[in-house]
């Protein structure tokens, strides 16, 4: 068990005024079996009233609406959490057994799985570790080759990507193998931004694995949101009106 101080901030800047801006943030970490949020504060600028709900996957959603003209949206969370990765969640949503938008394999990824599956026998944990090993051998961790819209199949074809892509490919392989798997967005020591990893279903509980670092998840990982893939977990989603052509996003996270 470990007590973590966390902070996380995002600055969205637009190159022209925007208005009628609706947003949904998934940034307040949930209480789960393996983590307890002792304190958490959220600051949003420009000042706006927000409402909290909990979505179908158990994530805290902060929804807001800024009607008037503005050129930025900043938000920051700070808090303390107690993490105990030896404790596990035991609730399975059946949808995690099936491929989702980002993880749907193409023929190449399917072929890769078929060639792989007979080389190794074992339980879900052994298989997840094996798949993660293979991915760390053949996929290069490289920024800038993929975007947040890149699917598992696309990243696999490029043989490169970032944590999000490693997670999607591993989830795709696990689900092809009949093992339920889910996408986790969160904070970890190894990263200055937000991180992503995977949880797989062992048969009676969820267990974490970090394919981008090819290691097990320990008490240094704080879950912010979870879902079938990146789509369900986006830290911030928004719809706004205006003549802006670009938005610039700066993210900083600290875990100590």
């Amino acid at each position, binding site marked *: 068990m470990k007590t973590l101080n966390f902070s996380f901030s995002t600055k969205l800047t637009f190159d022209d005024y925007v208005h009628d801006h609706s947003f*949904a943030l998934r940034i307040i970490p949930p209480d789960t079996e393996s983590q307890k949020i002792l304190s958490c504060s959220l600051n949003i600028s420009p000042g706006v009233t927000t409402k909290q709900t909990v*979505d*179908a996957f158990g994530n805290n959603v902060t*929804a807001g*609406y800024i009607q008037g003209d503005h050129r930025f949206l900043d938000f920051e969370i700070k808090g303390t959490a107690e993490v105990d990765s030896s404790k596990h969640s035991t609730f399975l949503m059946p949808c995690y*057994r099936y491929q989702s938008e980002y993880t749907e394999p193409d023929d190449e990824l399917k072929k890769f799985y078929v060639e792989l599956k007979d080389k190794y026998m074992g339980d879900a944990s052994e298989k997840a570790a094996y798949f993660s090993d293979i991915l760390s051998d053949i996929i290069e961790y490289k920024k800038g080759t993929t975007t947040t819209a890149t699917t598992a199949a696309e990243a696999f074809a490029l043989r490169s990507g970032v944590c999000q892509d490693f997670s999607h490919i591993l989830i795709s392989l696990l689900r092809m193998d009949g093992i339920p798997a889910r996408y986790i967005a969160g904070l970890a020591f190894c990263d200055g931004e937000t991180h992503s990893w995977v949880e797989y279903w062992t048969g009676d509980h969820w267990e974490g694995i970090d394919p981008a670092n090819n290691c097990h998840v320990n008490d240094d990982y704080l879950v912010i949101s979870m879902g079938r893939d990146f789509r*369900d977990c986006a830290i911030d989603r*928004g719809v706004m009106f205006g003549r802006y052509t670009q938005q610039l996003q700066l993210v900083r996270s600290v875990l100590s």
Partner: protein
Amino acid sequence: MTQQNIEQFTKAVGNANEINELLRRYGVKFGIYKNGVFNEQFFPFDPIPRVIASEDFKSIEKGLVQRVNALNEFLFDIYHEKNIVRDGIIPENFIYISKGYLAQCEGITPPNRIYSHISGIDLVQAKDGEWYILEDNLRIPSGASYPLIARELTRIAAPEAFSENEIVDNRNYAQLLKETMEYTNCGGIRAILTPGRYNAAYFEHSYLAEHTGSVLVQNDELFVEDNILYHRTYSGGKTRIGVLYRRIADEYLDPLNFLPESLIGIPNLMEVYRSGNVGIINAPGNGVADDKGIYYFVPKMIKYYLGEDPILKNAPTYLPFYEEDMKYVMDNLEKLVIKDVAEAGGYGVVFGRELTKEKLEEFRRTIIAEPRRFIAQEVIDFLDLPILDNGETVMRKADLRAFVLSGETTRVWASGLTRFSRNPDSFVVNSSQGGGFKDTWVLK
């Protein structure tokens, strides 16, 4: 009602040209997309009514209420406990592979637990008089306004027909709809959300808004603030919406929860809905229950949830997913009708007997490769109905879309949309496939 009555009526209404001319002037149209081009088509009206005897309708009514109640139970179960899967009545993957299943709706309980407020159930009557269910439409079934406006016009053309015959007045549809909307209202005004005038059913959206006293809105007039859905008024104020009858598909409903590229949705609508601050008609996620693959299981659902025997029959259906059904489908492909479960509106429907030998073999391989994608049905020899074609009476295939409204109770509208195929060789009656419609008289 005698044959003579109908002949008199038809004569009074005339050769349908006048009525069709009026319909044209009223703008009763049906828009369709073909090859990416939008066309507004006239939806032709035929003056010879379909007549359903009182006793016949009573039994249909009972069967429809039973079916819709079971489907509502099923939807609640699927988005909560999933007992029907646990008890092995429906294989799990039929639920989760279905495009209509929305994981985002897990755990949400809509107002009064009603999912399908307006159900459009398609039936056909076989030559032996038995009615069969062809399809359930629990998302946004359209078509109720066509028989309504046709009745208005024919009442003007032949008022005696309605005073002299015992025909149930069907002009209460708007009242039924209004009551259904009010029962789901979470506090606020009633609104009908349309994607705009380029939608296939825009005529109907405006007609129903006018007749239910609801505001007809597009998404740019709506916004979500503090978990409440508001309508922006002309004076710059805001009015709370308590129930939204949306005529846009689930995936476009909320760009922050579903398709991010949707330009016709309302950001954060799902948060309002999840919080119980707005009723959405019909509930998002209903597509899992009207999936063509799930259709097969509806009689089992009736038994499972209600402990009753189904009153209305399904058309005999086979799921190639099951081995013994696959064998039957392979052995009898040329006499079956095959439907792609992902398609709607009469698309993706293939009659085995219309395929050449090569096509049949090719199709066989497709079914073997993707068994979950198709259902196969016996071709029901349905009753032909008379229609007027250039002054001559000819017989054509027709179906009936019955509208079932679920509010405080589940009620069947004593009318419906009878659609017919204008092509003498076709069994496909969908309006998007160029069919026509006629009035449906239910006798007292």
